[in-house]
């Protein structure tokens, strides 16, 4: 909204919408890459596909500096406690993308040492299918997550609403 003297403009919005807009455009991913999908993740952040176009290129290997965990690869029972620990170390708000068939469901490893989907361990916001997913598919997943953040539909938002309702 332009001021009568033409000096500056004012935009009216809700705080949540503003925060959502800010958050969705500056996702800092933590690649929890364990297997083949991690190699495709490297392709996504490399020059050819370049995830930077969607504001999510600041890859951080410390969970304390990131707000998006991309689980890229098979999670085994041996790795399971580590996933939980790393997720616990991330500061809120935090989101999870499960990349690839193994992270989503265990994939074609219905086996004695493989977690049958990372949602056994941590809440997942977006599931990206594929073995491994193409870079386009992962980008689609990131865009979907951005939509969900904007609309307040992520797991984090749901928990926050429930918390508010229970304390009100």
């Amino acid at each position, binding site marked *: 909204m332009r001021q009568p003297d033409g000096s500056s403009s004012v935009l009216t919005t809700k705080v949540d919408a503003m925060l959502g807009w800010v958050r969705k455009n500056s996702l800092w991913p933590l690649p929890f*890459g364990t297997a083949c999908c991690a190699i495709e993740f490297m*392709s996504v952040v490399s020059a050819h596909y370049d995830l930077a176009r969607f504001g999510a290129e600041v890859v951080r290997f410390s969970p304390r500096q990131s707000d998006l965990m991309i689980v890229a690869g098979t999670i085994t029972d*041996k790795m399971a406690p580590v996933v939980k620990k790393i997720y616990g170390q991330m500061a809120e708000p935090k989101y999870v993308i499960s990349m690839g068939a193994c992270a989503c469901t265990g994939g074609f490893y219905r086996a004695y040492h493989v977690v049958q989907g990372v949602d056994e361990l941590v809440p997942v916001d977006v599931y990206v299918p594929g073995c491994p997913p193409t870079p386009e598919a992962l980008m689609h997943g990131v865009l979907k997550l951005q939509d969900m953040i904007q609309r307040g539909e992520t797991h984090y938002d749901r928990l926050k609403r429930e918390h508010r309702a229970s304390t009100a």
Partner: protein
Amino acid sequence: MTVSSANTELPLRDLLPGGADLKIEEASDGHAVITVDRTRLLGVLEALRDRPELKCNLLADVCGVDYPDREDRFEVVYHLASLEHLHRFRVKVPVAEGDAVVPSAYGVYKAADWFEREAYDMFGIRFEGHPNLKRILTHDAFQGHPLRKDYDPGQRWFLTDAETMVPEWATATSEDDDQFETQVLNLGPSHPATHGTLRTVVRLDGEVITRAECEIGYLHRCFEKMSETHGWQQVIPYTDRLNYCSSMMNGVGYALAAEHMLGVEAPPRAQVVRVILSELSRVMDHCVCLGANLVDLGALTNFWYFFQPREEIYGLLEACAGGRLTVSYARIGGLAHDVPADFVERVRFLLGYIPKFIDDVDKLVTRNRIFRDRTEGVGVISGEEALAWGWTGPCLRASGVPYDVRRAWPYMGYQDYDFEVPVATTGDTYARYLVRMEEMRQSLRIVEQALERLPDGPVITDNHHVALPPKSKVYSEMESLIWHFKLIYEGIKIPAGDGYFFTEGANGELGYYLVSDGGGKPYRIKVRPPCFAVFQTYPHMLVGHMVADSIAIMGSLNIIAGELDR
């Protein structure tokens, strides 16, 4: 890849201790198979290593096999090779279930270290005298031995405690010099420089590592058990996910192994396409290895330079197979389908396109002062030592041993290609970098020659015990319909027997030990992952180095977790 039967000319019975009553046979894969009682195992292994006529300097693999119906339920199988005489041996030791103990071969071949731990983990066979016999792939809370035939493939055990695997020495108070405190540091498994899922615990004196131990198995996704529950052909997608940086080569290696067991051969066109795509995969693999290694050393730019040619190769693979990374393009008997019409032009484009990026990195890095200071003299290993640990591939060649399967035991017509096997002598991280750089150029040379001789014709065998007949014939001929039906329902049946077949993977000798009981499913598949043997040396190489060096060394070894843990 198959070995000529030169073994039969050797007077093995005279050369081996107690040879008169050993069971010695010549197997169809060219190995001399020696079945030996466990009490005489070490004597036989020592003779195989030390006798000048035998001189087996490489212990390629140790694995277990479970035969529940036999009186001696388990069999421990050793694969040995002499790189000098170019002959190979398979030593089998049967043991009973109630008394599954075998003397450890670690004293004879250091390479046995982790392989024996794996056999213990998977089958519960104990190796007497092993320095550190404990589970290696499964976790602390795991019960039972998963590769036994009576173990349910889906039976999971849950691990809740993240603080597992703390070596005893790590908790012990520092011994001699109590003036300075030692510190125990945990690297991984979730660490930017551990390339996936490796974990190392190191003890530091100041910044110098005084002791180290590795924990692997964080990506153990049960490849071998899964392959026992699928048909022979269905295993190919699983092989893709072993070394996922060059998945084409795993599939080709497996298909060749199964073809040898079946006695069929892929048509010439399929062979040449396999060579082209395998060598391009080797280039891709080295790109990832070097790119990641350089990132860890702070040279990020090279990572982008190396990933660009990869994208182009991916494009080609996608056009051929439909998948970028996990291609599943090889089939037992040939290829899934023919290459696209513009295949030759695309490969020609790649041949002109890739060298530019290699040259760019070469100019940036090879004579770079910082890079050389950080890699020269770091992680040095002598050729002899490397062989004793079971090293193969570029890492071994960087230590001066010119062993390349494509030269020593040629397969897929590699004997007809003109290429060099690059060898360096210093055995340090820098040498491993140089060898990989040169190997990429040599691979491109092979691709160029292969392209010249790419014949026309079918890409899959017409043996309908192995490959489906063309769909048009299935609809028009009764016989083809029956073949189709049988192959879909029963799968390929490989004659009963066993064989060890090996190719030159991106990391070294990639071996498949196949055991068939004549049915439509593999009885046992053991992969000999090249980086498994390399990585077991890693904790020993670290001693005396700084923490930062450990990262440089690890990157140069190219440890791929999918292949390491399977």
